[in-house]
């Protein structure tokens, strides 16, 4: 499991930030250095506003600290990135309480169902009593897909009929969890574009059911984002946060060549921490996100 994380990080490292070290690694800082830096950040999907802000901050730091060599910029950039990835708030999913309710949300195809399978497996292994709710009643065979994951993770699943009301199934799930003494409930939801008014309302209804039925629930609302997504990731995070008070992000498909640079903008603008990264199709391909390790990883090469 740890090998796969290291592999996927090192791929990111070599492909992008490896270039930062190479391109900025020698010589004095000149106009070209700045252009290269900007180009590299943009190509890592860090996004235009965050890139511009980072470059400005670095210019100020170069001036203030009298830096003159390009390689000194790497340290400065590392520091600057670290200030963006501030300490994450408590991860409520892992706090002790009678019943912890976790909603998993996101746009179509980001990897929600697969991620829930992995989460179920991980927390079952950690000794939690896990129950799944098949809240994606819309997409063809989504319930069957989650059912297969629940069997692989060996955790039970509460599901209803296709095209049923996700809020009603959520309610059934919470009742079942209470009655049978489960302490961790993951609610799968249908993928939806954040621009669809009615679908976002439907999601709010699921949120409302959690809120009404369990004290302080949902304790975590995790947004699943896929790493190849560009700058729209920030808009997605914003809109889902507005609707259902997203508390954290899971970044999937980090085993490809995608850089996942929008994480910085999401931290910076919305204060949403990344909790896990998805690194493959197997049930063990999920790793906790460690900001320090992530930044350090980006720079060793």
């Amino acid at each position: 499991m740890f090998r796969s994380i290291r592999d996927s990080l090192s791929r990111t490292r070599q492909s992008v930030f490896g270039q930062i070290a190479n391109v900025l690694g020698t010589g004095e800082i000149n106009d070209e250095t700045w252009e290269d830096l900007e180009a590299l950040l943009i190509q890592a999907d860090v996004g235009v506003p965050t890139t511009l802000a980072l470059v400005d901050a670095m210019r100020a730091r170069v001036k203030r600290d009298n830096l003159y060599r390009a390689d000194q910029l790497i340290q400065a950039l590392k520091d600057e990135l670290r200030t963006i990835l501030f300490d994450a708030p408590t991860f409520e999913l892992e706090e002790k309480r009678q019943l912890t309710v976790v909603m998993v949300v996101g746009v179509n195809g980001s990897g929600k169902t697969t991620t829930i399978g992995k989460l179920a497996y991980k927390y079952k292994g950690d000794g939690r009593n896990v129950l799944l709710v098949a809240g994606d009643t819309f997409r063809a065979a989504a319930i069957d897909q989650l059912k297969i994951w629940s069997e692989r993770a060996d955790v039970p699943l509460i599901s209803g009929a296709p095209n049923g009301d996700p809020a009603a199934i959520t309610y059934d799930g919470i009742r079942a969890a209470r009655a049978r003494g489960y302490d961790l409930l993951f609610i799968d939801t249908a993928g939806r574009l954040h621009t669809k008014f009615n679908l976002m309302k439907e999601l709010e209804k699921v949120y409302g059911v959690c809120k009404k039925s369990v004290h302080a629930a949902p304790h975590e609302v995790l947004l699943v984002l896929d790493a190849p997504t560009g700058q729209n990731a920030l808009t997605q995070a914003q809109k889902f946060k507005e609707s259902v008070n997203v508390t954290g992000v899971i970044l999937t498909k980090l085993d490809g060549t995608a850089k996942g640079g929008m994480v910085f903008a999401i931290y910076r603008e919305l204060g949403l921490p990344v909790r896990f990264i998805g690194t493959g199709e197997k049930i063990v391909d999920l790793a906790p996100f460690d900001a320090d390790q992530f930044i350090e990883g980006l720079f060793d090469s």
Partner: protein
Amino acid sequence: MFESLGNRLQSVFDGLQRRGKLTEADVDKAMREVRLALLEADVNFKVVKSFVKRVRERAVGQEVMRSLTPGQQVVKIVHDELIQTLGEPGRLNLGLQSPAVIMLVGLQGAGKTTMAGKLALHLRKQGRRPLLVGADVYRPAAIDQLQTLGRQLDIPVYDEGADADPVKVCANGVKQAAKAGMTTVILDTAGRLNIDEMMMGEIEAIKAKTNPIETLLVADAMTGQEAVRVATDFNNAVSITGLIMTKVDGDARGGASISMREVTGVPIKFLGTGEKLKDIEVFHPDRLASRILGMGDMLTLIEKAQTEMDQAEAQEAGERLLKGQFTLEDFLKQMQQIKKLGPIGQLMEMIPGMGKMTKDVDLSDAERDLKRIEAIIQSMTPQERRSPKILKASRKRRVAAGSGTTVQEVNALLKQFREMQKVMKQLRGGRGRGRGGLSSLLGRF
């Protein structure tokens, strides 16, 4: 979709339009904005560079300096360049051989399976007989998903379960289609990473075995800078013949489509524009370029109207309208036809000049108003719909209760309807130039 890019460029060109002549410095300033706008739209960095270079070369030349409205000239150059970059209109080349094989490839979660269903429906509408082949044996329940779509559409699906070899499944699927007299086969392959050599080898083998006439890369319109690498890798492996961009009904700026088209040189053929199986659009570069620049897309709107609206019913309503017999019933029918066209926001974006306005208006309000109007009319008896005059206090209370609205809202609707009728009468009599109709009714409701 793509609206933000449109807005951004529009604001640059608004600045240009206010000036008489363009200096080279103006062009520089405009190009900087074009560059930023494209980058913010997730167009790949390198693609932006070459695009801006091409536009600048054309803009700084005499073409612009001699023209009377240089700003418009730059808009035109960007527009032309966008059309050129976006390439030719999407057309499937299915050849003469039957069955014609279409293979869909792409990353996980791009929307291949859904697109397979949409494409099958689209082709059946054109008189072809499609067979869907489920070759995704990896993702849990992927084949069930395709089977479910097939049942919904009443289109046959061939698969050999989740333990089968995808290469064999595809080859057998094609044989099966030939035997059953199907004219088109759509291969739904598993999602895979472009750097996964083993999995890329699998689609190469499928391609070699089934000899598809179209190999289409299905890609998420929200993809960022990565788009170039993904498209290049898939193209190198299986020589794609076209692109399908999915989830373009979101608010992503859609730069990935420009990047992928530029680096592969293959045309964009279709757009996935919604959750329903009919939500597939044939790609038109000129329309998309216009839409990106906020110049509207009336052609798509007209086409949509032609396919979705009941012509006879519309004509009948039009005639009654001219005779002054327009009733709430006709009004309700008209509204329902408009609703068939899609969400109001999507429609507005297609109307020239509206794209900019829709940004500031919460269109979900308009959608709700439409629903409310519909509910009110549906709570009336046929007699009331034909002659709303008979609606007095008690009937109004009943209608309000039935539609979950208030008497005030019922009154407002009736008042607007009376005004609309008045305008119609004026129109009929040729007096005045009233701008009545649904838009004013909605605007004031």
